[in-house]
C-alpha cells in the first residue's frame, strides 16, 4: 500500500482488513510512525514519540490480547491521562518527567482491547485553554491550514491534530468546557464529550472535577462509537461515575433518524461570523432532508454560562492544582538562598528558618513551574472561594449552574437533540487571541453549557471557510443519550459523503 494509506483509514475499516489478514498490525504502526516522523516536527501534535518502545508495545499487545475490539490500532492519548510508566506532564513544567505508577481506567480498558497507545498528545497546560498555545512545550499547528499558522483548538489540540493529519487512527482527549469538541471542529474531525459520569475520571489529571470528562476524537461517528463503547461504563474507583449500562453504540448507529426532532436555540450572537452561521443553516437543511423535524427551544440562562463556568471551574481547578508543590513528585525548585521578603531594607522573616524555607520552596516551585494561564486560574479560583466571597461567587455560580441545567432539561424534553455551532468563529490564527484571555474565554461560549449541565455533546465538521478551514457544528442530547448524537452524526456523514470531503481537506502531505 502507498505510504500513508493505512494511516488514513478508520478503526472500522482497519478492523476488517486486520481480521482478514489483508493488513498486518506492524505495517499499520510503521505507516503511522512514518507519518509522525515526517509531519510531527512541523505540526508538533506530539511531545516526544519513541518508535522503538511503541513497536515493543505492539508486540506485547499482540501476544497478550489475541482478540480485541482495538487490536493493533494506534490510539493517541492526551498528556493528562495517566499511563503506567509513561511521562504524563499535562504539558506543564511542573509535572515534567512525572511518570504515574498506575493506569487510568480508560487506559486499562483500551489495553484490554489490544490498542497500541501513543503518548503524549500536546495540550494547553493542565487543559487551561482553547488553542493549545498554553502548552509549556510549544503550540500545535492546525494540519488543515496550508501555512500552519492556525491553531488546532484546545485544550486537546494535539489529539485533534494527530487524528486530522493521520498521525493516529483515533485519540482520547478531555473536555471541561469544550476541549474535545472545539479542537474537533477546528481540525475537521468528530469529537464527543460524554454525559458527566459516563466515562471514568480515574486517572485523568483533574482540572474541574464536576465538569471534566474523557472522550473520543475520531475520523467519523462509527469510530467515535467504537471508542466510546470501550471506555464508557461504571468504575468503582470513581464515585462520580454513573452505574448506568452502556448501549452498543456501534449497533445503534445505523438506526434511521427520520422523525427525530432537532432543537434550535436562540443564542447570543456576539462574535458569531457569517460563515459559521451559514454552515449551521446548511447542516440544518441536511437534517431536514433526512426527515428530521425542528423545534424552537429556549435556553434563557445561556448568556450567564461563561461567568458561572469561570467561577466554578477555576475554583475547583485552584483546589485540584494545590498538590503541585514540589514535595513528592514533579518538579521542585532547587534550594535557594533562603528567606523570602528579602527586598532592600526589609527585615528577615520572623519565622524560624525551616518554616520560611518551606514556604520558599512552595512559592518558587509554583511560580517557576506553572505557566501564566495556570496562575491566572489558580488566583481566580482561590479568590472566589475565599472567606467573605464564597457566597457571592462560588455559591452563586453553582446556583446559576442549576438554572442552566434546568434550561437543558426543559429544552431536551421538547426535542431529541439541540443543534448549535461549536465555536462562534472558524479556527483563528496562532497568536490572535493569546494576549487577551477574556477574548479566549468568550470563544467557549457555545461549548461550556454542556459541561455545566452535564449533558453529552458531539462536534463534527459541517462546512469550511473560503480558505478551507473547517467549521464545526455541535449536537447536544439528554443525559446518557450519546446514541442519538452518534446516529445523527452518522446519518449526516452518509448523506453528505463526509469521508470524501474529509480526505480532500487533508493537507500537509
Amino acid at each position, binding site marked *: 500500500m502507498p505510504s500513508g494509506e493505512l494511516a488514513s483509514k478508520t478503526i472500522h475499516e482497519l478492523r476488517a482488513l486486520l481480521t482478514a489478514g489483508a493488513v498486518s498490525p506492524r505495517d499499520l504502526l510503521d505507516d503511522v510512525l512514518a507519518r509522525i516522523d515526517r509531519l510531527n516536527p512541523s505540526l508538533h501534535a506530539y511531545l516526544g514519540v519513541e518508535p522503538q518502545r511503541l513497536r515493543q508495545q505492539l508486540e506485547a499487545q499482540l501476544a497478550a490480547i489475541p482478540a480485541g475490539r482495538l487490536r493493533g490500532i494506534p490510539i493517541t492519548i492526551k498528556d*493528562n*491521562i*495517566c499511563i503506567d510508566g509513561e511521562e*504524563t506532564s*499535562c504539558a506543564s513544567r511542573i*509535572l515534567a518527567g*512525572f511518570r*504515574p*505508577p*498506575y493506569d*487510568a481506567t480508560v487506559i486499562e480498558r483500551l489495553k484490554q482491547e489490544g490498542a497500541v497507545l501513543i503518548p503524549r498528545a500536546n495540550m494547553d497546560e493542565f487543559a487551561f485553554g482553547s488553542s493549545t498555545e498554553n502548552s509549556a512545550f510549544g503550540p500545535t499547528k492546525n494540519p488543515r491550514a496550508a501555512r500552519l499558522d492556525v491553531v488546532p483548538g484546545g485544550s486537546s489540540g494535539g489529539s485533534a491534530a494527530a487524528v486530522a493529519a493521520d498521525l493516529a487512527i483515533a485519540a482520547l482527549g478531555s473536555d471541561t468546557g469544550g476541549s474535545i469538541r472545539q479542537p474537533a471542529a477546528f481540525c475537521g474531525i468528530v469529537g464527543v464529550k460524554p454525559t458527566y459520569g459516563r466515562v471514568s*475520571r*480515574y*486517572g*485523568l*489529571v*483533574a482540572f*474541574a*472535577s*464536576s465538569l471534566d470528562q474523557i472522550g473520543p476524537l475520531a475520523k467519523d461517528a462509527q469510530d467515535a462509537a467504537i471508542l466510546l463503547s470501550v471506555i464508557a461504563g461504571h468504575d*468503582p*474507583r*470513581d*464515585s*462520580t461515575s454513573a452505574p448506568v449500562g452502556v448501549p452498543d453504540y456501534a449497533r445503534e448507529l445505523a438506526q434511521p433518524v427520520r422523525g427525530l426532532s432537532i432543537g434550535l436555540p436562540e443564542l447570543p450572537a456576539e462574535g458569531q461570523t457569517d460563515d459559521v452561521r451559514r454552515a449551521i443553516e446548511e447542516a440544518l437543511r441536511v437534517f431536514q432532508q433526512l426527515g428530521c423535524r425542528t423545534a424552537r427551544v429556549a435556553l434563557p440562562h445561556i448568556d450567564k454560562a461563561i461567568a458561572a463556568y469561570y467561577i466554578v471551574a477555576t*475554583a*475547583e481547578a485552584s*483546589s485540584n492544582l*494545590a*498538590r503541585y*508543590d514540589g*514535595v*513528592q*513528585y514533579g518538579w521542585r525548585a532547587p534550594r535557594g538562598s533562603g528567606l523570602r521578603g528579602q527586598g532592600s531594607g526589609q527585615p528577615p522573616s520572623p519565622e524560624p528558618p*525551616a518554616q520560611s524555607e*518551606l514556604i520558599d520552596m*512552595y512559592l518558587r516551585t509554583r511560580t517557576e513551574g506553572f505557566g501564566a494561564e495556570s496562575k491566572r486560574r489558580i488566583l481566580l479560583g*482561590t479568590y472566589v*472561594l*475565599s*472567606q467573605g466571597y*464564597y457566597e457571592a461567587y*462560588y455559591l452563586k455560580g453553582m446556583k446559576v449552574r442549576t438554572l442552566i441545567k434546568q434550561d437543558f432539561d426543559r429544552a431536551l424534553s421538547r426535542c431529541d437533540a439541540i443543534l448549535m455551532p461549536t465555536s462562534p468563529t472558524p479556527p483563528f490564527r496562532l497568536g490572535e487571541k493569546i494576549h487577551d484571555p477574556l477574548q479566549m474565554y468568550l470563544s467557549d461560549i457555545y461549548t461550556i453549557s454542556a459541561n455545566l449541565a452535564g449533558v453529552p455533546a458531539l462536534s463534527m465538521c459541517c462546512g469550511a471557510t473560503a480558505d478551507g478551514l473547517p467549521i464545526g457544528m455541535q449536537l447536544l442530547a439528554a443525559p446518557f443519550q450519546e446514541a442519538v448524537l452518534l446516529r445523527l452524526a452518522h446519518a449526516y456523514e452518509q448523506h453528505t459523503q463526509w469521508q470524501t470531503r474529509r480526505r480532500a481537506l487533508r493537507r500537509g502531505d
Partner: protein
Amino acid sequence: MGYETVIGLEVHLQLSTTTKLFCGCPTTFGAAPNSQTCPVCLGLPGVLPVLNARALEWGIRVALAFDCQIARVMKFDRKQYFYPDLPKNYQISQYDQPLAQHGHLDIVVGDQTKRIGLTRIHLEEDAGKLLHEGSPTDSFVDFNRTGVPLLEIVSEPDLRSPEEASQYLLDLKALVQYLDVSTCNMEEGSLRCDTNISLRRPGASLGAKVEVKNLNSFKAVRLALEHETRRQAALLDQGERIPQETRLWDAKTQKTSLMRSKEEAADYRYFPEPDLVPFIIDPALVARIREGLPELPARKRQRLQEAYQLSAYDAKVLTQHRALAQLFEGAIQAGAPPKPVANWIMGDLSAYLNAKELDPDDLSASPRGEGQAGVKLRPEWLAHLVELIAQGTLSGKMAKTVFLQMLEQQQDPRALVERQQLTQIADPGVLEQIADAVLQANPQSVEAYRKGKVTALTHLMGEAMKQSKGKANPQQMHALLTQKLEALKSV
C-alpha cells in the same frame, strides 16, 4: 478571682478499620515508613477518593452511642491548606452537613451527674507524619497515616473545670472502648484532644476562646487546662483582655505558648468535595447499627447495681474500663459471687496495674502493639481463685501470692495450686505433726508462754507457717498450738 471557666473539648478518634477512609491501604500502626500507601492516599495526579463503608458504619455507631441525630444527607468538603504531610494540600473533611449532631455524654463528677452536650461528630481523613530528626537540613514525611479515618467529636462548651474536662475525656474513652472501633490510645495517637477554654465573670457573655493544642496524654489535658485557667485569670485580674488565639502546651516547661493569633488563622476555603457525591443515610442502616450496639457503660452501671447490689462507686469503677467490666461479668458467669470478685478487681488487681503502670486494656488476651507482652487474665481464673479461697484450699494470704503468680505466669490458679502443691494443709494429723515439731524446737517460746507471754504464740505460729511453707490452715494451726500450749501449761 471569681471567674467561671468555660471549656470545650475537640477529640479526634482514629478508627481502627482494616483500610483507610478513601482507599484500600492498610491502617496498621507501626509499619515501615511509606509502606502503606497507594496513588489515592498519596494524592497523585488523577486519583479519586471512594468512601469506606465500614468507616461510615462505625461513625454511625459512635454517634448513636452518644445519642446523636444522624444526618439524613451528609456530604464531604475540602478543607484547604498547604503542608507537606497533606499530599493534596487539602483534607477531605465535613463542614456544614456532618455525619451527626446534637448528642450528649453524661459524666459523673463526685456524686453529681452532669450532661455534656455534643455539638457534632464528623468523618475526615488523617494527615501523614513529619519527622525532623536524622538530618540537619532536611525533614522527612511518612504517608502511612495519610487517609486513615478520623472521627472528630466536638463538645459544647459545657465543661466548667479541668476536673470535669478530664472526666469527660475518661468517660468518652470508656464509652468508645465498648464499641470496638478504636484503640483509644493517646500515646499512639489514636485518641487526640484539643481544648478551648475561656474565662468570664458569672453571668457575663463568653470570653475570648483560647485553643490549646499538643496535648499528648490525659494528664497533659488536665495540667494544661489548670495552667490556662491560672494564666487567664491573672491577666484578667490585671485588667487585660484575653486575645483569641491558639496556644501550644509544652509538657517539659508545663506552660502554654502562642502558636498563632486569630489574624493568622488560616482561611480554609471550604467547598463541597466534587469527587464525592452526597450520601443519603438509610434509616434502616441506622436502625440495624443501633440494634447491634453493645450494652453501654451507663446502662451497665445501673444493671450491675441492681443485679448484684453493688454500690454506685463500685459499679462506676467496674464499668469505667470495658476490660474490667468484662472481667467482672465473666467471673460471675463462671459461677463466682459478685462481692469477692469486685473486691479482687478493685483491690489487688488495681494495685497491681498501678504498680506496673499498666492499663486495664493490657489485660486482654492478645498483646497490644509492639513490644508489649500483654497480661492475660481470664475471667474464669478469677472465679477459680475466689472458689479456692471459699473451699478453704487457699488461705487469704496464700491467695494473694497465687494471684500475683496467676498474672505473672499467666496460669489458671487451679493449675498453680496443683503444681506447687499449695493446697492448704487441713489434715489434723499432719498439722499435729508440725505443731509438735515446732513446740519441740522452740522450748524458750513454750516457756515464755507458760510464764504468761501470749506473744510467744505468734512466734510459734510463724514457725509453724514457715515449716509448713505457708500451707498450714492458720485457724486450725492456731487452735492446735493454743490447745497444746495450754495442755503443757497445766502440766
